[in-house]
């Protein structure tokens, strides 16, 4: 692949792969909790951080991490204590975040192009320093999500039971919130604020069509995220398309392909099941899809 002889393309690829692996590892907890769109909201808040960073001449990514973490903690507290007005409070936070970001970027000397870079991603401008940030944060995130999986699973699956088990429920909830903020900010470089949720959620949605357990869903989602990131960057490099959009479209394409194959396999099995009664009608579908 001669395109990847350029350093900037190589950095783009490595950055995308790290994010593709880490984003679904966190996203699975958000899907489990039916908060699939929360990443989107936190992305909006991160944009205000980007604007503030550009205005103050500080690293936009670093300020965005701070803003997104603050936003995520506020959202988590609203979720835990607010209940009734939570929906509206979230809406205010989302729109305030994106409006604040657009306004602050406008006030700074940055061109409108830099706003676009954060809205839709600008993978090919990943600097070596950015790559170190992405790599370190991505690795910390991945290890945390894997090591704490039993506890995080318990909290997302049945919060009251987790409390009676004596788990530090509030700390684990805040960990997920902060993890979401970190994922959003490192993924901002790759796919942009407006497409972040896709990388956290779509691979999980794809995986759970054919998996039976939480761990297998997590593993498959991470593999799918890795594939979408790699294939997306390759498509972007060869067809000269926007990398962020290409990665997300590959992820959504995989979802559709798996959905069709799974439906086809089920229909085939049902027809075969009529002549020979199958003991476990769901099990073989998995293998057929994997082959497909």
């Amino acid at each position, binding site marked *: 692949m001669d395109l990847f002889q350029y350093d900037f393309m190589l950095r783009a690829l490595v950055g995308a792969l790290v994010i593709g692996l880490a984003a679904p590892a966190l996203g699975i907890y958000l899907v*489990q909790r039916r908060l699939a769109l929360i990443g989107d909201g936190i992305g909006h808040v991160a944009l205000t951080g980007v604007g503030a960073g550009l205005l103050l001449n500080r690293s936009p990514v670093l300020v965005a991490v701070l803003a997104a973490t603050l936003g995520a903690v506020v959202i988590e507290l609203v979720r835990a204590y607010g209940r009734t007005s939570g929906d509206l409070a979230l809406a205010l936070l989302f729109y305030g975040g994106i409006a604040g970001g657009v306004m602050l970027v406008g006030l700074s000397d940055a061109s409108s192009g830099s706003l676009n870079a954060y809205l839709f991603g600008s993978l090919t401008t990943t600097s070596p320093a950015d790559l170190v940030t992405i790599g370190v944060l991505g690795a910390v995130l991945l290890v945390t999500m894997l090591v704490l999986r*039993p*506890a995080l699973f318990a909290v997302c*699956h*049945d919060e009251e039971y987790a409390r009676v*088990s004596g788990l*530090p429920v509030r700390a684990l909830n805040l960990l997920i919130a902060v993890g979401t903020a970190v994922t959003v900010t490192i993924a901002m470089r790759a796919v942009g604020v407006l497409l972040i949720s896709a990388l956290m959620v779509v691979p999980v*949605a794809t995986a759970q069509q054919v998996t039976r*357990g939480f*761990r297998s869903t997590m593993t498959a989602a991470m593999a799918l995220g890795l594939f979408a990131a790699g294939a997306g960057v390759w498509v972007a490099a060869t067809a000269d398309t926007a990398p962020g959009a290409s990665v997300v479209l590959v992820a959504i394409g995989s979802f559709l392909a798996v959905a069709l194959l799974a439906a086809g396999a089920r229909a085939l099995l049902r027809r075969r099941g009529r002549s020979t009664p199958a003991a476990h009608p769901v099990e073989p579908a998995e293998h057929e899809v994997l082959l497909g």
Partner: protein
Amino acid sequence: MTSPVLEIAHATVGYDGRPVLRDVSLTLTAGEVVAVLGANGSGKSTLVRAALGLVPIGAGSVALFGTPQRRFRQWHRIGYVPQRLGAGGGVPATVTEVVASGRLARRGVLRPAGRADRAAVAAALRAVGLADRAGDPVATLSGGQQQRVLIARALAGGPELLVLDEPTAGVDAASQEAFAGALRAFRDGGGTVLLVAHELGPLRPLISRAVVVHQGGIAHDGAVPEPAGHHADPDHEHVHPHCDEEPAGLWRSI
């Protein structure tokens, strides 16, 4: 005589300032199987939720194994079985994965599952008769089987006190029998049980004491009340305990 397993003294519990339970006291000693009965909305679930700290108490005190609930940290001694499996989100989870959550109270958040954990999960699944479904997604199980998964999760931690919130509501007969068997084995092993129920069904012979919650207070604490009136019909499994001075119809549920 050691300290009681659970001691609720003069507790008042309410939601948003509206009291649900007023001046309620209840003591459980080791080895008892106590059923909390009452009509829907009587506050019987609130009573056990308050005992576990899931609902804050306004006045009075709750002690678990002799420790005030606020300072109680030995949660592995308690196995909680909620009414039903939570919404659970869209991500599939296998029966084993759900039951394995029951080991966290014992093992802690950071230590990975070991051989003892896997053995305890397998034993708990055998105890409720679901060993053959270990690898299946919980969503594919019937309501009764899901309820058995929840009791297996509570048993997996090796608790001394089981707290069950309407475990048999809407559960098929086979699961109720499996349930009663698991509970009997737990009691025979020296365990204590606090059970909220609307209908006792096959659990009835296991109950050593019944507490009836009525209009935010405890109306009866003693022997399991006999079904009365049309409720005595063998086809009618609901248990609506009655007081002499009140018509049985008062206890009728929706």
